[in-house]
């Protein structure tokens, strides 16, 4: 039995046997919530390594594409700096800083270029949230 299967089994017991046997409203709700939490953790454990690899590959592709879109000399320096930082750190904080830099440089970039850059970032965000929804949804 995998860890994920074990958690699913305990969750089923909480949902089907323990929860309904609890008379008072508050602890009964807690029993059902415990079942929900264990189901989600189980799903997360089952998908964790596949999702981590996909996240890393998507980030690499994003860095390559944004690097191309910003390789001219008119690219705003704060946006380039945020992209360099993201390439070093490869984390969600770095991605947030890049998005903030794009919004802050919107006027300098012009609407079309701002739209292209943010649109490319959003492709990555969409794939990432779809993976998280496989656990959360």
């Amino acid at each position, binding site marked *: 039995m995998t860890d994920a299967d074990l958690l699913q089994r305990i969750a089923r017991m909480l949902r089907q046997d323990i929860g309904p046997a609890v008379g008072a*409203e508050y602890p009964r709700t807690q029993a059902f919530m415990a079942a929900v939490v264990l189901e989600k953790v189980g799903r997360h454990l089952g998908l964790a390594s596949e999702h981590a690899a996909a996240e890393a590959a998507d980030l690499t592709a994003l860095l390559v594409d944004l690097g191309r879109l910003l390789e001219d000399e008119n690219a705003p320096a704060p946006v380039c700096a945020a992209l360099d930082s993201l390439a070093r750190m490869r984390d969600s904080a770095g991605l947030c800083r890049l998005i903030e830099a794009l*919004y802050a440089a*919107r006027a300098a970039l012009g609407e079309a270029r701002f739209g292209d850059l943010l649109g490319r970032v959003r492709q990555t*965000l969409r794939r990432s949230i779809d993976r998280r929804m496989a656990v959360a949804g």
Partner: protein
Amino acid sequence: MSVDRTEDLSPRIRDYLASRMPHARELAVGQIERIAVGWSHETWLFDLTWREGGEPRRQGLCLRRDPGNALLRHLSDLEMQYRVLVCLDSTPLPTPRPYWFERDTVILGAPFLVMERVPGVCPSPWGREGRAFYAAAAARGKLPASFTATLATLHTLDWRAAGLDFLGVPAAGAGFARREIAKWRELIAASEHPPEPILTDLIGWLEANAPSRARTTLVHGAYRTGNLLIHEDRISAVLDWELEVLGDPMYDVAYVLSDLNREGTPLLSNLVERDAFFLDYEAATGFTIDEEVCRYYNVLYAMRSAAFWMSASGLYATGQSDDLRLARTAWSVPVVLERAARDLGY
């Protein structure tokens, strides 16, 4: 001594009420029950019986206690709720009558307020039974009309005359939307949740598109079934005064129009037909519903929901709460972010 168990709480409540009701004799607290509603404050219902002038008396009461781990953290203030209820008591809006607020934590281990237990039921719109309840009420027609009329009353009451200006009037123009964005940013920061790039994108969009408001009214902030007490097919009390502000009434209207608040039905808040809501609300208030502004506020609600769930799951993660409903909300964060991404067109 623990004051979390009902058997420990009852005598303390009785002693407190005895000190507040000097003419009452033989006070007894009965049928005390903690109910699983609300995310910020514990809610306890009980019956108080006593004798006064030789006559037996009975009153249903509701006690809300702030254990200090409210979902809204520093933005939650039980005393503020009490003040709002005191102000609203003299208005036509149906609300529970507030009796006492107590900030002394020695009495029940935390600040609390005691208010009237208004007759009525408050079915959750998310469960099968609740959905059936609202579907049947929608078919009868009286409750949907009461839902809209009560919101119109809320938006047209004279908040200055009621003394509600202490809630703070937002700056002109886009001041209301910007103040809300700033408030939810604060809560997100307090939650210490890891950075979320979709949320950063969402906030960037919200700041760039903040609308001006046409008027200033009292705004409930969470006007929907589940926060409204219902008795004999009408709204007997508007509950959950935690998110109220002075601001744009379209903020409440957007919440009513949102499909967040209905499950498997085109009826707004599982209850009201959209066309009837527009017609009745506009006739009762004299306001025109601005759907474009409502769409903006719906996106703002995505930010607010993300802030709620980040705060809630953070309270559990840091051991400030043992309520497993809060633990579950860690998975509500991606759900609202996914919705926000769709709102922004991706």
